[in-house]
Structure formats: structure tokens, C-alpha cells
């Protein structure tokens, strides 16, 4: 159009350690050995847990779950950057991050085995339970960030994770708008894993990047190599620092890939090509990061073997814990429907328990 230009916008991309192992030392974050090994360990644990959980699920010993394989860097990198004061508001595909936040694998397994008890991590961990309705947790993050700002809590921010599919939901848009208007300490991390079940990224949005959606809110936005844990750490670190210093929210698009099925109920062969998947296995975030650690002399085959064994044992212990637990309280739903007592609810509880009793007597179930 022959009209007068009034605004310009630009969008950047961040990669620190590329697929071939090339490192941009200017951008390399200064992380201690402890930190580097902590995040590697978490990524590896998440990967192993996926494998084991898939087997359990196939054997009918676990319910449906959403594997995170391929996205370990995109979730664990940001989580490493977070302090325990920060809030973790996730979706349903961030096992590695949740485990770093103090969740135990045994508890996660309990959740995937159909028990609310699996969500009962103490509130002090500032890690919300899994949120299944796509995008619906993003407004919660904004509200929490508002509370942080309202109370003047120092060095505290809220990090929320969601998928590429979530960017299509109204909740995403409304929440980013609120966050920007309110200038709250929030970091929005979009896990662009290229698929929302069977719908590819390009059918989810006609925009060239997802990061550019931040422009709609005049919010800083950046596209990051989501399989590069150093880049993800760095982008989140900067976003958190901005948040801590009162400069408002940031949007991060992590470009990554869901290497496995959407959930254990899904068959990706129906909708995507082997080749594409293979190409992304070449960019495996774990392999890339392990080489980096090895290059730094921080990691070797022996350590890897030891870690693998330790994690296998840990996972087995968690499965044992899961399967060894004794009875859940059948009427817990009545305990947790309201914070106050009501005659109607208590009468229904009594009816429910009497029914259970009759069954027991009759020898049913």
C-alpha cells in the first residue's frame, strides 16, 4: 500500500549451541557445574521416565499420559533459570520441569494412575497441578503475577508453559493482553513442538513465527532454539531478570519437536511422516547437551552409565511405591468439594458410604 509507514517491529532468534555442536561463546550462559549437571540429569530422567511409563501404560498399569521426549531442553532450561520463589504454571507435557520443581516421580505416577493425590505437592513449591484444557492455565499465571506485583514480592516471577496449539485459544490472547496492560512479572513460554495432536504448526496459525504474536501486545518476544538448553536457559534468565526489575512480561517461542505420540492414546503414523520425525531425532536436545558437557570435561561414559543405572533404579522404586500403596479414601471427593460443610453434601456422602458398605457385605467389587 502506498501509505505512510508509522511503526516498525523486529523479531530475533536465539541459539547458543547449534545442532552441530558449535557454541556461541558470547551468548553462552555462565552456569556452574552443579547447575549444568542438574539440568542434564533432569532431562535424562524425563526421557527415561517416558520410556518406562509408556511400557507401564501399554501393560495397563498406568493411564493415558503425554510424553515429553524431545522437549526436555525447552522445559528444563527455563526451570533451571527459575528460583524456588518463582511460580511454575505448566500444561501437561513438562514432566522434566515438574521433577526439577520438587515433584516426585512416584507422585506423578499416582496422578497418571487416576488419583488426585498425585497433584498434592505442597503449595509452598509454587508449582500448580497439570492443566489439561489447552491454554487455560495462562490467565492463572497472569493473576498470580498480579498478586506478586501487588504484594511487592521481590525477585519473584511466574513462568507459564503451553503449546503451539494453545496460541489459538482466546485464553492465550486475553492473558497476554492483561499481562502487558498490567506489566506483571510473567514469562510466557510457548513449546512450539510443531504439532497439536494431528494439526501441524502451519495450520494452527498463518504467521511465520509464533514469537511475533507478542507484537500484538507490544511485549518483548523472541524465538529460541528449543532443543538448545543453553539458549532456553539464557532467554528465560533474561526474561526473569526483566520481570524482577519491574519491566513486565516476555514471550518466548521455543522451537522444538514432539518426538513421540501426542498421548498414549494417539497414533502419529496417521498424520505425520517418518522423515520429519527422523530429522528431529537428529536434533535431539539430550545428545547435543551431553556432547557439550563432554567437551567441557564435565561428563563421560562412566558417569553416563552410573546415571542411567541410578535413574533406572529410581524409576523402578517409584513404580514400586505406586503399586505398593494401599487403599485410597473412597469418599475423598466429598472432603474436597467445599471448604465448608453442607447438609446436602454430607447426606450424599452418607448415602455413598452406605452403598459401598452394602456392596462389601454382598461381596461385590
Amino acid at each position, binding site marked *: 500500500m502506498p501509505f505512510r509507514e508509522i511503526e516498525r517491529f523486529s523479531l530475533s532468534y536465539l541459539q547458543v549451541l547449534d545442532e552441530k555442536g558449535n557454541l556461541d561463546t558470547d551468548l553462552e550462559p555462565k552456569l556452574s557445574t552443579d547447575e549444568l549437571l542438574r539440568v542434564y540429569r533432569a532431562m535424562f530422567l524425563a526421557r527415561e521416565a517416558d520410556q518406562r511409563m509408556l511400557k507401564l501404560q501399554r501393560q495397563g498399569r498406568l493411564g493415558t499420559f503425554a510424553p515429553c521426549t524431545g522437549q526436555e531442553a525447552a522445559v528444563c532450561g527455563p526451570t533451571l533459570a527459575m528460583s524456588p520463589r518463582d511460580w511454575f504454571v505448566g500444561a501437561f507435557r513438562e514432566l522434566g520441569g515438574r521433577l526439577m520443581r520438587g515433584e516426585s516421580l512416584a507422585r506423578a505416577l499416582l496422578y497418571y494412575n487416576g488419583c488426585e493425590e498425585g497433584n498434592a505437592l505442597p503449595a509452598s513449591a509454587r508449582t500448580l497441578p497439570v492443566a489439561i484444557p489447552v491454554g487455560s492455565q495462562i*490467565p492463572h499465571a497472569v493473576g498470580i503475577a498480579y498478586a506478586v506485583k501487588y504484594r511487592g514480592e521481590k525477585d519473584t516471577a511466574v513462568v507459564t508453559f503451553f503449546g503451539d496449539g494453545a496460541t489459538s485459544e482466546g485464553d492465550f490472547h*486475553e492473558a497476554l493482553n*492483561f499481562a502487558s496492560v498490567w506489566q506483571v512479572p510473567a514469562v510466557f513460554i510457548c513449546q512450539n513442538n510443531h504439532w497439536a495432536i494431528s494439526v501441524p504448526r502451519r495450520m494452527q496459525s498463518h504467521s511465520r513465527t509464533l514469537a511475533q504474536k507478542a507484537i500484538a501486545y507490544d511485549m518483548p518476544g523472541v524465538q529460541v532454539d528449543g532443543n538448545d538448553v543453553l539458549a532456553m536457559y539464557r532467554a528465560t534468565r533474561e526474561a526473569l531478570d526483566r520481570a524482577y526489575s519491574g519491566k513486565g512480561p516476555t514471550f518466548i517461542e521455543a522451537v522444538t519437536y514432539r518426538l513421540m505420540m501426542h498421548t498414549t492414546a494417539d497414533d502419529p503414523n496417521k498424520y505425520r511422516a517418518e522423515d520429519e520425525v527422523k530429522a528431529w531425532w537428529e536434533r535431539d536436545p539430550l545428545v547435543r547437551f551431553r556432547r557439550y558437557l563432554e567437551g567441557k570435561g564435565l561428563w563421560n561414559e562412566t558417569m553416563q552409565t552410573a546415571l542411567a543405572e541410578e535413574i533406572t533404579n529410581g524409576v523402578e522404586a517409584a513404580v514400586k511405591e505406586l503399586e505398593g500403596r494401599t487403599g485410597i479414601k473412597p469418599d475423598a471427593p466429598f472432603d474436597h468439594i467445599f471448604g465448608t460443610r453442607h447438609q446436602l453434601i454430607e447426606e450424599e456422602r452418607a448415602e455413598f458410604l452406605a452403598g459401598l458398605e452394602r456392596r462389601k457385605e454382598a461381596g461385590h467389587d
Partner: protein
Amino acid sequence: MTRLTMVQALNLALDQEMKRDDRVLLLGEDVGVDGGVFRVTDGLYEKYGGSRVIDTPLAEATILGSAIGMGLAGLRPVAEIQFSGFSYLISAQLECHASRYRSRSQGVWTVPLVVRMPYGGGVRALEHHSESREATFAHFPGVKVVIPSSPRNARALLAAAIRDPDPVIFMEPIRSYRAFREEVPDAEEVMEIGKAQVVQEGKDLTVIAWGAMMRPTLQAATEVHEARGAGVEVIDLLTISPLDVGTIVGSVAKTGRCVVVQEAPRSFGVASEIIALINDRTLLVLEAPVRRVTNYDVVTPYFGRELLYLPDAQRIQEAIEETLDY
């Protein structure tokens, strides 16, 4: 003691609760400088500032969604939805989250919040500004639904809702906002959520109503009493969910006759649930079917026809008399 309208009484409750507890904050469209389109939040922006009386962008889902976040973080947000006709936009956040964080986390996470919304017809308003859809919210487990009917109980119930540990949908009958005044004590007054009130005792028939239907109901009860001396017991529901079974069933067990007055369309409304409760627990004392006086199962007409559709004192009176004569 001052004689206040419901709008003033609600304003008083908000003011007192905000003074008492700095975790309480208000958010919604036009609740700030404008004081709310009905002036319920008038003066509070000036008193408590823009960070506690928040004019949000125009997006109901995230008004609730961010209030949920505030509640999770320990605040006590009071969200306003400008008209209940737009409250369907909050359904998902309400059903999927506000109502569930407690059970989902076995009590670790709770969402103490209030959603205030004006509802109901009879004020010559535009489309979407006159519905009464309390049943929709009441069917969501984990949500409390409260509907005051007068300035005094509005004030005391709003205070209770704000202090309640659960999400409370607080529906305010627009028609009663300024229709009459009532003495409201200056000192704090907090009513218990989950309790109905017998506002008038009687032995011959029970009428159950709530919200803006209370006034025509009381008028009808008086007329029936004057016309034929019948003792009509009138129950103001006040809490729609969870229902106060004891008060409802107790009264009907005594009178054996019952009329329920509901502003909403007939089917799948609150009146049906009351009838089901009576059926469950005290059917055999009934000397007549429970009568429902309701709107019809049509889209609420624009105000040109609206008054023909809303229950009024005359229809209520007819139903009472027919039930007495049954």
C-alpha cells in the same frame, strides 16, 4: 443504621471488606473510575486506588482466569461481570478450574473468589441484559451460587461470599438494585452461605422464591392472606447451591403444599431441583402437586414483550390459590 438501596448496601459490603482485609481487591470492566455501570463500586477506586480496584480490559474469561490466579496466590479477588448475559464466557474457567482446584489438589490449592454479576429482567434493558441463569452455575459442583433479595441480606451475603473459602457466584437482581430501601446496620453483618430464610411463617402453603421474585411473591402471599386468611409460609432461598435441604423440606413437610417461583425459563431450572428434593424426602405429605411459576421455555423476549413472560404477583397469586384449592 441507614436506609440503603441494594446498590448502596453492596457498596458498603465491599468497602468494609476492603478496609478489613487488604487481600480483597476488585476487578472488572468499568469498576474503577466509573464506579461500575450500576455504581456498585462507586468511590472505591478513589479510596483504594487503581491497583485494588482494577479496570480490566474487556475480556470476561480472563477476568475470571486472572482472579483464579490471584486466589491461588492468596488474594481474595471480587470480579464483576458487567451483566450475567455475558457470563457464559467465564463458564470454562469456572467449570474447569475455579470449581476444581480444591478437589484436584486434595485441598492444597483453593480459589477463594467472588464473581458478582447483575442479572434478571424487568428493567427495559437491551438483549442479553435480562436473563436469569442461576441453574447453569448451580449444576457445576464446587461452585456456590448466592442470590440476595434485599439491601440488608445483599450486604451480609456479599461479606460472607468474600470471606468464603470457595468460589462464589454472586448474582444481583438488577430489578432490586434501586427499587426499595432497607435499614442496614453500620456494623459488620455476615450471613451464613448455604442457609435459606423463612421470611414469613404460615401453615397452609410454602412459597419458595429468590432474588427479584421475592417482592412479587411477598405481595401475592399478602393478597392471598387478605383474600382468604390462608397462612402462606415464604422462603427466600438466598443460596442456590448448595441448597438448604433442611429448611425447604421442613417447611413443606409442615404445610403439605408448595409453589416455587422462578424468573428463569421453566425447564432444567432451580424450581425443578426443589421439586426433586421434595419428591425425594417428603412426597407423601404433598396434598397437591408443587406448582412452578416461571418464565417459559423461550428465548427471553426483548422488553416490548418481556413483562408478559416474567412471573408477577398475579401469576403467583393464582398459583397459590389453585394449590390451596387443589
